[in-house]
């Protein structure tokens, strides 16, 4: 009997949590993913295959995952933070050992028939772990050496591993969101300044010592001089600028983009998808999409602000920052403001792993939203 009551109690609880989902966030994410479907449909000359339909299906599945994570109590994720982080780190360490090499970089693990990119898992796991860490740290400890070493190590280890794969874009993204969580946790400004100086120094040392490979450096600096090497490093950003610029205010019309449809931008279903929106839908379309992203950011910010637990706050905002980092780096990249480092436009670019990791992240945000009123969290084991 007790089991039945408990089960029905659980059902009620689940129903209540489902009702409590943040619908604006769901709507915004769906709108963004729809823009992706629209763009991918145009990329393949008005065809659902090979990109648009899989994209839509993946988003549907990712949405289920997001809701699943969202309805799971936040304290469960708190308890899973460290194990999750170490599991992700373990997988990252496995990559160089048993990973698959693709286009000169080892990023993938073949696990029983499906591919896993541990760095994507780590992006979420890192934010989660850092939020967990600061959740349990007294404020006065934040800027102390003892308080600073663990999080820096937590950031440094995966960033270093990903950088060596080599996957510069993901390393930058990961480092950026990690450091942002540190900033949000309240480390002193003096340390922030020191950190910036150390970062710049480290980058210079990296180049000098050859740790950053020549082709990476070329790609990093190419955007500063768009007229050089127009058929090499600058081909994509230049053609993409032409596409967006020629789109004008109104755009050339859906599926009418000459740059996109005439193959001047190959492989645009991935990192350069923003181009087709700018070219075909013009300033209106591009600003509209950016507006959606900004709306997601502020909705998540609002969720973070409303969370009573420090874990929930840092987690939600950390995910939000990771998300907009993608957007800013990607759009900067396609418009010649940032180096081409292989960062996709989340939920719009074709590719399942990033979509899944971002939606999983928003699942955590959702969980933080539903459990926003819990001011203290009891970490619980798997069974409790």
């Amino acid at each position, binding site marked *: 009997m007790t089991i039945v009551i408990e089960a029905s109690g659980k059902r009620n609880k689940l129903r209540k949590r489902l009702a409590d989902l943040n619908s604006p966030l769901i709507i915004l994410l769906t709108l963004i993913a729809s823009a992706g479907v629209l763009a991918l449909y145009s990329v393949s000359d008005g065809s659902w295959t090979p990109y648009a339909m899989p994209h839509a299906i993946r988003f549907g599945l990712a949405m289920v995952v997001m809701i699943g994570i969202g309805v799971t109590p936040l304290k469960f994720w708190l308890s899973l933070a460290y194990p999750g982080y170490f599991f992700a780190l373990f997988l990252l360490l496995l990559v160089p050992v048993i990973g698959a090499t693709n286009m000169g970089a080892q990023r993938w693990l073949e696990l029983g028939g499906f591919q896993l990119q541990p760095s994507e898992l780590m992006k979420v796991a890192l934010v989660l772990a850092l939020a967990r860490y*600061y*959740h*349990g740290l*007294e*404020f006065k400890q*934040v800027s102390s050496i003892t308080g600073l070493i663990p999080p820096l190590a937590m950031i440094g280890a995966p960033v270093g591993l990903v950088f060596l794969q080599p996957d510069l874009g993901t390393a930058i993204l990961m480092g950026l969101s990690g450091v*942002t969580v540190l*900033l*949000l*946790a*309240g480390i002193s400004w003096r340390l922030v300044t020191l950190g910036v100086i150390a970062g710049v120094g480290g980058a210079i040392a990296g180049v000098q010592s050859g740790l950053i490979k020549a082709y990476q450096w070329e790609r990093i600096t190419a955007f500063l001089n768009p007229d050089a090497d127009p*058929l090499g490093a600058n081909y994509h950003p230049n*053609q993409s*600028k*032409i*596409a*967006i*610029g*020629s*789109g*004008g*205010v109104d755009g050339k019309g859906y599926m009418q983009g*000459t*740059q996109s449809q*005439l*193959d*001047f*931008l*190959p492989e645009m279903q991935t990192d350069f998808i923003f181009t087709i929106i*700018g070219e075909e839908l*013009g*300033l209106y379309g*591009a*600003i509209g999409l*950016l507006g959606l*992203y*900004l709306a997601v*950011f*502020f909705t998540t*910010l609002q969720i*973070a*602000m409303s969370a*009573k637990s*420090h874990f929930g*706050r*840092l987690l939600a*905002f950390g995910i939000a*920052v990771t998300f*907009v980092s993608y957007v*800013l780096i990607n*759009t*900067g990249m396609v*418009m010649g*403001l940032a180096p081409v480092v292989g960062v996709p436009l989340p939920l719009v670019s074709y590719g399942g792993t990033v979509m899944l990791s971002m939606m999983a992240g928003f699942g955590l945000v959702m969980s933080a939203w539903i459990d926003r009123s819990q*001011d*203290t*969290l*009891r*970490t619980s084991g798997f069974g409790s």
Partner: protein
Amino acid sequence: MRVEPFDTQRHMEFTRRATFVAGGVSCLFVGVGYRLWDLQVARHDEFRAQADENQFNTRLIAPLRGDIYDRYGNVVANNVPDFRVLVIPERTDNLRDTLVRLAAVMPLEAEQIDRILNKAKRQRSFLPILVKDKLDWETYASVNFHSTEMRGVVSEIGASRAYAEDAGAAFVVGYVGSATADDITRKREAADTDEAAEKAELLYRQPGYKVGKSGLERTLDDRLQGDPGSVRVQVNAHGRVIETYKDNAQPPSQGTAIGLTIDKDLQAKTLEVLASNYGEYPDEALGPHPLSASAVVLDIITGDVIVMASTPAFDPNVFSRGIETKLWRELNESPLKPLLNKPVQGTYPPGSTFKLLTAIAAQEQGIDPSTTVYCNGTYRFGGRDFTCWKKEGHGRLDMEGSIKHSCDVYYWHLATQLGIDQIAEVAQRYGLGQTYDLGIGAEAEGIVPSQAWKRAYYRNDPPNQTWFPGETLSVAIGQGAVTASPLQLAVMSARIATHKAVTPRLVRAIGGSLVPEPLFEELPGDPQNVKVVQDGMNAVVNEWGTAARSSLLPDFKMAGKTGTSQVVGLRRDPVTGRRLKNEEIPWQFRDHALFVAFAPYENPRYACSVVVEHGGSGSKAAGPRARDIMRAVLEKDPSNYDKHQFWKGQQDLTEVAMLGGAR
């Protein structure tokens, strides 16, 4: 596990920091938005233009070269479809890889790949390079099929120059080839504006575009080339044309058609005659001998070169295609000099044909043609005996008889009464020692010796060279320093026949309209002097003279003169001292055989010259060939068309000729 108490301090700090980060993110979004505005509004026009530049392309459409016809409108040179494959280096992922892949679907050797790679280094990467042309349809179709997988490979159908193989007009028409750097520079310099120069260069650099390299193809290149057209096309990133905007296309206009004075059929007939064995060496023990000969036939009213034949000849198509080194070397090193246009570039001592001019010069110096000279076979001059070709002697001869029998003694006799400069002046007047600017490249001037010539020739080394009277004796019979080309000899014959300053021409019509026929002026001098020579030439052929076997009687009355000119001096057997016959010495030392003629005798219309190198004797090797050539020419003459069925089965030539204004 420890439970953290709610911490107001860190919450407040978080709120501040979050606000800060949100502000920063907002600023970055504004930055991205500003960049969008910058690209899509402020610099929209610039990028719009660049996108247009990407997708739209003005393509020059190469014009077809003007066709070249013979005098009856038969094609001598035209354009035929050409299947070819090009590569645009800029659009390939890797030029070498692409070529290697291409080699799998079409014949392409490593050597050719290297050549293309070299060329790619030297020119702008967006310019296409010809990989191979003149492909057969199967290969072309296969490349076409596979080229979709190979970025930068373009297959197209162009036009290439083709020459009628039976026209034998290689030397007249010349051939075309790809433009060299020099051709491009020259064309650029000739352009009025920078734009025109740029356009010309683009055109010249188009793969498969050909320019005239020799002959009339070169001389009349500007007219033959035509004007390129242009069309606006939309292309994709691989250079594939997506759409062609035909509305505002400017079609190319084909180059001007050129009508030659040449008669293709007569040219072919002449080549056949020249290359046939006329049994010039009946005692030949060494087997067949080589034949290197040339012939020119002129219409003496218009100056039209009806026939200009040289054998052995080559096929200009191999030059248009791009000749292989091996074949080139073969042609270049042959002792028969197939690359030499003998009618205008070959010079030969005119031999006895020159006696006609000596005879005119003598009359002009007051020597009566009826005065007779006795030939006993030798002539003593300067303490030396000169032997007539007929060593038993001709007996008593007047001037007409001297021509008929080609008596040397008679002319030696005249030579002692003439100055060399007087002979030289007549020779010049009758067409020797000059060029006619036919537009087919280097014409040999030949040599008409005179006192001034000798001074200039030796350039005072040894000093103060003077003309020796003995030398005049040689020149009087067409030996010694005097040389002439077959064309000059034909002109000489035409001028003797008409007593007019006949000048040859090769172009009869340009762009469908006839070049006005020239009116030749009367030559200075008494026509009566020439009459004696004409009569002598008639006697040579028709009254049992030296060329009796060349008579066309009873059909036509042809007048002519034989010539046999020595290549080496005395040819005696080293043991017996006997004079050796032509067939007893190696081919290249034998005498040249010459013949000049005009016909019909009473009302001359055609003049002709035939030179058979090392042919032995004019009467055996050159005369009969001239006879057969002239028979064909006369039978084809519109006025004789009804009488002779030789050309039956062709078009109504009379009508064509009338339309063309030949008669």
